[in-house]
């Protein structure tokens, strides 16, 4: 096994732990029941663009499943899967970013936000409500409202928290070619 894959596993583990802590203890209730203003999606967006789709998907899946379990209501699979889909979709665009080389400028911010907003749209307005209807037979209007409000809140927090974290992380990384031979 390559060293890369050990790092992937650890990134999933630590990422899911962070996702859990943020989602469980830093939750701000939103006006619509069952949805929280979730800071953890900012982290997930960041982890996904710096580690790729598999890490993104599994952090979303494991982290969200652990949050559900810890509240004691069982695992709400449709939303857990939607979190994984978000991590996966954002992670797929990893090659567009050079965040690990310390670059995250205006262009990066723009790209990141377009990607994360569309990722949230697909996960919460399409995937989550459809699975809710399929798996739990809940009323259409209710699941779409929940999805829409959850997705909107997640997109806003990702835009603020995720972007700030990406900028901060990139700034702390030494830039590629920042050393010059004299």
């Amino acid at each position, binding site marked *: 096994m390559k060293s890369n894959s050990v790092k992937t596993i650890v990134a999933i583990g630590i990422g899911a732990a962070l996702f859990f802590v943020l989602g469980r203890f830093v939750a701000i209730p939103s006006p619509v029941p069952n949805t929280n203003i979730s800071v953890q999606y900012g982290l997930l967006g960041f982890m996904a663009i710096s580690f790729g789709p598999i890490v993104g998907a599994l952090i979303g899946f494991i982290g969200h499943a652990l949050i559900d379990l810890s509240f004691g209501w069982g695992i709400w699979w449709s939303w857990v899967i939607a979190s994984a889909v978000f991590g996966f979709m954002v992670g797929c665009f990893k090659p567009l970013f050079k965040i690990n080389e310390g670059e995250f400028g205006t262009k990066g911010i723009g790209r990141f936000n377009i990607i994360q907003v569309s990722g949230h749209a697909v996960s919460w307005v399409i995937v989550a409500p459809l699975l809710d209807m399929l798996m739990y037979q809940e009323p259409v209007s209710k699941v779409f409202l929940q999805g829409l409000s959850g997705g909107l809140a997640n997109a806003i927090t990702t835009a*603020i928290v995720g972007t700030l974290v990406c900028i901060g992380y990139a700034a702390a990384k030494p830039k590629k070619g920042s050393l010059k031979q004299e």
Partner: protein
Amino acid sequence: MINIFNYIERNSPIHKLTGATKLIVMLLWSLGAMVTYDTRILAIMPIISFFLFAISKIRLKDVSFMIGFTLIFMLLNNILIFLFSPTHGVSIYGSSHEVFSILGPYVITWEQLFYHLNLVLKYLSTIPIVLLFICTTHPSEFAASLNKIGVPYSIAYAVSLSLRYIPDIQREYHDIAQAQQARGLEMSKKAPFFKRLKNGAAILMPLIMLSIDKIEVISNAMELRSFGQNKKRTWYTEGRFTKWDIVAITLGLALVVASFVMNYVNGGRFWNPFIR
């Protein structure tokens, strides 16, 4: 600090089952409760699960916090469904027996009440089982169980790592939050919402940096110990199957089969007592 995966050491038959069995039964159980809306099955499931809860020697006050959360969740979900779709039951069961009318479209029908009864029963049948799983399975056994039911061990190990590091990260988050607040960062309700989000990011930054460093350190340590060299691995906390494990899994399987059979017999996911 609250202990999240609230493992409670007691001497009970449920504790003696292997973690893998409990995981399988929990998954089967929630699958069974998810697929069917047959009220007869949904009425039996809470009875069995409350019985199991009783023999596990977990007391209600051990889990009262979680139960409170879940009941609020259940209540809100029911209210929301009624507000958005007061005639969901009518469209499912295809008939309408009015009880009384509140306002405009908000008419209480027996069909709607019956649909809500099914929803509540679904919660009541899964909550005790999930609580049992959380309270009677040691976190370190959880990863071994995942591997045993067929999840690749690298993924099971990732779950184990995250359970291991949740308390650490929780503590670090707390420390950083206090340090930042001591430097004047407002996190209470007094700060406007967007300000609070931005301040939240100021706590997140050091936390994420620390965690990224941690990823380096842990993966180096794992590589030094040749993690991932072999196709399989053994687990320190893996238990042996006894006959009670087989009994438990059979019970879980029987329930899933029953709910699928009833779906077939009823010709859909709902059992309809209104056509007679």
